């Protein structure tokens, strides 16, 4: 096992542990952690099973296997970013609905208050 492999394994375990701690302290919701755990799992598997990484590198025509791992992680990063865009899109939509609801509720309340004053 060479140095980069050791560093890779440690980094992947650190990632998984970090995400776990964030969820444990309720800083991250479980539904968002799933993709992170999946990423960490891929990271750790390809770090430990060098042969697997080598096979995939060969298949993809990449000469230097650590570069393949980098590519895979970048790809997973893109997936995560897409996931976030989807989540943010929903939140934006919900936020707009809430803003409008509140405005209409405030209006209703003001009308009721003026009625009570009379």
């Amino acid at each position: 096992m060479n140095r980069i492999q050791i560093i890779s394994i440690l980094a992947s375990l650190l990632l998984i542990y970090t995400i776990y701690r964030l969820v444990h302290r309720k800083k991250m919701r479980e539904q968002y952690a799933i993709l992170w755990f999946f990423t960490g799992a891929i990271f750790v598997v390809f770090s430990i099973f060098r042969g697997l990484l080598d096979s995939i590198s060969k298949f993809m025509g990449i000469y230097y296997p650590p570069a393949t791992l980098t590519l895979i992680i970048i790809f997973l990063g893109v997936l995560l970013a897409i996931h976030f865009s989807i989540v943010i899109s929903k939140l934006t939509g919900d936020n707009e609905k809430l803003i409008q609801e509140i405005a209409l509720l405030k209006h209703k309340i003001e009308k009721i208050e003026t009625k009570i004053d009379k």
Partner: protein
Amino acid sequence: MDKLKKVLVIIPAYNEEKIIKKVVEEIRDTNSNIDIVVINDGSTDNTQIEAKKAKGEVVSLPINLGIGGAVQTGFKYAYQNNYDIAIQIDGDGQHDPKYIKDLLRPILENDIDTVIGSRFINNEGYQSTFVRKLGIKVFQTINSILIKQRITDSTSGIRAYNRKAIELLKDNYPIDYPEPEVIILLGKRNFRIKEIPVKMRSRSEGVSSISGIKSLYYMIKVIISIMIEYRRMCDE
């Protein structure tokens, strides 16, 4: 039967315009001394109008939150209005309100905190798909190990909670697939949980909100959540 305790029936409902009125009326017919609140979970159909026709209270969420968010809203309502006991019954007609008194009895007489209506104590009534049955077996095992109680039906949505449970759950209620996770949440805090046998009717109208591949996703997600929740509890 309510022995001067204020009891609230919480009915989470999403797009159940065809049956919600019947559900509310059926509860009222079998239990006269009980309050009912329908939590309309951002339905896009006429659920709100139909529920109001049955003279129950209706709380309409401006945005769909899912069963977890809807039921939690019910707990907040129960807490704010000083209810002693909250009963959860699904808005799709699967649950028979005749079991309400059976759900209440352990709370009133034996100081139990949470009562669950289980389909599997006696193995009767409407049974669900293979995937769900497998999931249910998995949860049974997890529950036995983690909270040392044998819960036969963790996904059952017909339940009763006492004031102590309401106070906890109004602020801490899992979002996605809450029924199994709540059991761990309560079990690890040493809440007394009991099950009573029930038969459920098959879904009369509409489509189940959880199906096929989604079931698998939920199973994985819930298992992860349960494990983490368990660790959280160990630290406290």
